[in-house]
């Protein structure tokens, strides 16, 4: 909102009440912006305090993360590898199911099935994550242990898969919107050239909807990276630089939970670590959200053509 618009809102002759209401609405609109700014300010100031005591080389040049213990190491890669590993497993689970569900809903399902299936799937997105966490720990893990020998009780695989299940509705719903938005003329063109239905979907519809599908995957990834409860419960709490999905690991979010649950006094180095980790996490999701935002802009432009 530029200053001109502000002036029109606040200083044009209007009844008092209306101006108050407009002012209240303006405050409402800025709450989330101000909150974001506040969060960034807090993260930044505490992260700077952290880096006064710990060098960048210790943070980025080490693969061990043990700030709470006698032999202190601050290698963030141990936590990043945990986060990347669980998120990767989640995406590998969610994308095929989500995308195929989207194709089915948009191209094959008749109206009645679609009206029933889509909301039913979205219920999955409403399940509290703590429930997913215990689902992973006490249901999925024991099943996986029967199939995979040497799978530890806390591991990256089980919470990764369950996170994937949690993300399916996000990927499916947004991809379905994108596929649905592809103009019929493109499909008809493909049919006119003798394409089968499957051929038209793979060669024409999905590629045309690609930026929308890409955006849905990006949102799915940032959801997986930020997910806390599932990994805190089922992945173990042992920072370990590994890409082996069978052993206990710790993600960035789970570390923050672990420290916050203890009695770490404020202002100590241990306390500052959670902000440094939080900042890293914030940068990760920020980049992903930015990429998905650009992808969605591309769709909007495409739709205008």
């Amino acid at each position: 909102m530029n200053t001109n618009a502000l002036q029109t809102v606040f200083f044009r002759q209007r009844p008092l009440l209306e101006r108050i209401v407009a002012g209240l609405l303006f405050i409402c609109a800025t709450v989330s912006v101000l909150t974001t700014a506040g969060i960034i300010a807090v993260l930044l100031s505490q992260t700077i305090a952290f880096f006064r005591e710990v060098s960048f080389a210790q943070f980025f040049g080490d693969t061990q993360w043990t700030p709470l213990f006698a032999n202190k190491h601050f290698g963030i890669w141990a936590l990043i590898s945990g986060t990347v590993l669980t998120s990767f497993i989640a995406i590998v689970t969610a994308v095929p199911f989500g995308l195929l569900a989207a194709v089915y809903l948009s191209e094959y399902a008749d109206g009645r099935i679609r009206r029933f299936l889509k909301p039913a799937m979205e219920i999955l997105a409403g399940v509290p994550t703590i429930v997913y966490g215990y689902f992973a720990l006490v249901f999925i893990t024991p099943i996986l242990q029967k199939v995979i020998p040497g799978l530890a009780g806390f591991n990256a695989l089980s919470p990764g898969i369950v996170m994937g299940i949690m993300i399916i509705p996000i990927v499916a719903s947004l991809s379905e919107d994108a596929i649905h938005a592809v103009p019929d003329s493109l499909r008809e063109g493909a049919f006119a050239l003798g394409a089968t239905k499957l051929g038209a979907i793979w060669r024409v519809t999905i590629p045309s909807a690609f930026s929308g599908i890409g955006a849905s995957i990006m949102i799915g990834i940032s959801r997986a990276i930020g997910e806390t409860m599932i990994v805190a419960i089922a992945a173990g709490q042992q920072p370990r630089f590994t890409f082996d999905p069978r052993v206990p690991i710790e993600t960035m979010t789970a570390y923050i939970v672990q420290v916050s649950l203890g009695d770490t006094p404020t202002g100590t180095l241990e306390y500052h670590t959670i902000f440094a980790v939080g900042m890293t996490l914030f940068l990760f999701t920020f980049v992903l959200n930015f990429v998905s935002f650009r992808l969605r802009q591309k769709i909007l432009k495409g739709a205008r053509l």
Partner: protein
Amino acid sequence: MKKAMVLAITAVMASSIPGCERKPQESELIKMDGSSTVFPITEAVAEEFQKSDPNIRITVGISGTGGGFKKFGSGEIDIADASRPIKPSEVEQCKQNGIDYIELPVAYDGLAVVIHPQNTWARSITVTELKKLWSPQAQGKVTKWSDVRSDWPNEEIHLFGPGVDSGTYDYFTAAIVGTEHSSRGDFTSSEDDNVLVQGISTDKYALGFFGLAYYEENRDKLKLLPVDDENDGNGKGPIAPSLETVANGTYQPLSRPIFIYVSTQSLNRAQVANFVKFYLAHAAELVKEVGYIPLSPQAYSLAQNRVDKRLTGSIFGGKGSQIGVLIEDLLQKTGQ
């Protein structure tokens, strides 16, 4: 506008009707926090005590011995559960806030070293091996079972232990590593012993430690690893923790007394004094019930004696964990 006014008036009227006022209930609250190891005993005592007087509410937290002392030292709670004696920094905090405390031993505990039931190779472990495994130098280096003993499998070892705020962690590091609060950091640590039980019981290559009571509660899911202190003076060879071996001092060095710390200020409240008396009178039976080892009857009466005489301070001199002590001796020495 008018409608809002009417609503406001109704609200005022409602609150002025005598029956609508809420009287603050006169129920006594005793606040406790601290060690998750002591928690089962305190919980059992609190339950029994509340049966005798339903007007009393007792809250028991489990933020670890260190966490409990932090709250105790700032006057937030009446009683701290502790699985090790108070440390100098904590004594200092109490002094700063003018809190005097009475230290009361309530039971013996053996720290159980446990493994997965399907672990067939490990039958016992020596203190030297435990030290090799848990010392800070082991971090990132001693990572396989075969690194601990060469004929154990060449498989990654997954370690589980209490978090750094836990008194069990402090005692274990003091007894095994030799320096209190110093260990490797690459293990799964949690203040909640149930998380450790869950982790070890589902992982064939796991090894962990926690208070004996949590082993007793989960015997079917875990396997006890006997510990050899390589000192034949207090029992030959590897010894597993049990009622006898902990009470007679042969399960060393992983046996220890556990405590509650009462603030003298809180003790001036009749309910708190009654609760403490009840605690010491019934500890012997309840301690056994939850899987720990009771002190001798004489020790409990010596402890009650400390309460009656308001003997403040720590019989350990405020220096933290000491290894291999018998409570009866210490109480006798300082009780007069």
